[in-house]
């Protein structure tokens, strides 16, 4: 296959950047999307040019490192996968593909398609944990947890922190990510003691990072590679109201 790429190139965080066009031949449909980019980079290196920087690591859809807006859709056209799981058989010979980095004030571009998502880490640091030291735990089966609760918690905990929710949101909101973290712990008895404080503090940090507000477009749910539902946003909102209206701390 022959593919034309329009790729965002930006030397560093202060550079203004712009789109560049590349053509790549010899793309096979068994290649993953990132392997296609590897091929483009191999060609660029051979031509003495600088390769396209993009984030990737595990290449099996779990580490959450890879990103990319592909033809205007976070993680590309196929549902419920990350960019590294996207294969070139989803495209056809002669296609033109636009590739841009995640766009958000809270995800500044590091280079080309690489962005800095440390804002997500700071949101978790604001309260996305259970305060327990190693060694302080009781026996694991002392606290039965209804299977539906545990399953719901796992639905939320499946979040890989890739940031596609932010990237796809017309408002640049991080609510799906934050609500997944809050929902994961809110459905477990272990998460109860700090439940409302956690919701309040994590939302405050989310706002401080400069993410947008949610207006329920549900684009985040549509692109989420782990199919995390927006019901967690509704649940987070409830916890946030309780935290701000009813809790004393």
């Amino acid at each position: 296959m022959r593919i034309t790429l329009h790729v965002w190139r930006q030397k560093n965080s202060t550079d203004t950047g712009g789109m560049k066009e590349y053509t790549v031949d010899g793309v096979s449909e068994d290649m993953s999307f990132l392997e296609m980019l590897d091929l483009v980079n191999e060609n660029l290196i051979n031509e003495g040019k600088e390769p396209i920087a993009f984030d990737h690591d595990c290449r099996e859809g779990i580490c959450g490192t890879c990103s990319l807006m592909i033809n205007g859709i976070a993680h590309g056209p196929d549902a419920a996968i990350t960019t590294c799981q996207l294969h070139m058989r989803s495209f056809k010979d002669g296609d033109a593909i636009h590739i841009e980095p995640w766009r958000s004030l809270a995800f500044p571009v590091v280079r080309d398609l690489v962005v800095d998502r440390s804002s997500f880490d700071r949101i978790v640091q604001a309260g996305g944990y259970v305060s327990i030291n190693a060694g302080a735990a009781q026996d694991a089966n002392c606290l039965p947890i209804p299977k539906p609760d545990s399953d719901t918690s796992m639905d939320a905990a499946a979040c890989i922190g890739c940031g596609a929710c932010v990237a796809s949101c017309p408002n640049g909101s991080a609510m799906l990510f934050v609500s997944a973290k809050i929902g994961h712990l809110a459905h477990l008895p272990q998460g109860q003691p700090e439940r409302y404080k956690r919701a309040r503090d994590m939302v405050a940090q989310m706002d401080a990072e400069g993410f947008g507000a949610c207006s329920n477009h549900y684009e985040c749910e549509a692109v989420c590679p782990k199919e995390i539902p927006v019901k967690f946003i509704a649940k987070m909102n409830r916890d946030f109201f309780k935290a701000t209206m009813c809790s004393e701390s």
Partner: protein
Amino acid sequence: MSLGTTMKSSIGAKALMAITGIILVLFVIGHMVGNLQVFLGPDALNQYAHTLQSLGPILWIIRLVLLTTLVAHIWSAAVVVRMSVAARPVDYQKRKDLTTGFAARTMLVSGIVVALFIVYHVLHFTTGTIDMAESYGQMLPDGGGHDVYKMVIEGFQHPLTTIVYCLATVVLCLHLSHGISSLMQTLGFRNDSNAARIDKVGPVLAIIILIGNLSMPIAALTGLIK
């Protein structure tokens, strides 16, 4: 967390928007149901209008509450929009929507249009400042207050006025079709079991309101009611 801080937070602002939204939706429905009495003839409508007019200070309290609600709704919208615009300083060259609709993407525009229309509507029917030189202020002969019925019929005799009303009603419908479902999610009512119903209730209610509100100016213009 103080109430002020809460309201300025992303979720707090949305909650304020949702709660004021509920009040405004209820008003829109009440306003429509009241006005639909135009189809019951002049007596019914004028009687209804007279009852409202006779509320005295309570009417002013209601007006004040509605105005405050509206201002709060607009203020919260401003907070949300400002956050969202700031959140993406560099926009995409290409972006594709997967699930969101026209109504959701145009909430800001439809909101502004509705707000402008409210001003026009008040100047038109409530104060009679615009376009109402003749019929406004005419009293019923039996001392039953203003002849609102006549005012409505005459007010919609100008095709341009009627078109403005119809368009505004359509825009309002658009605004509500996303807004009503959306506020339930924002307030945390939406879950797995009711999501499909909640997503429908907004558009359905909006269309009912659209039909109700369209029926009056069209009926007046076409002479269905005289």
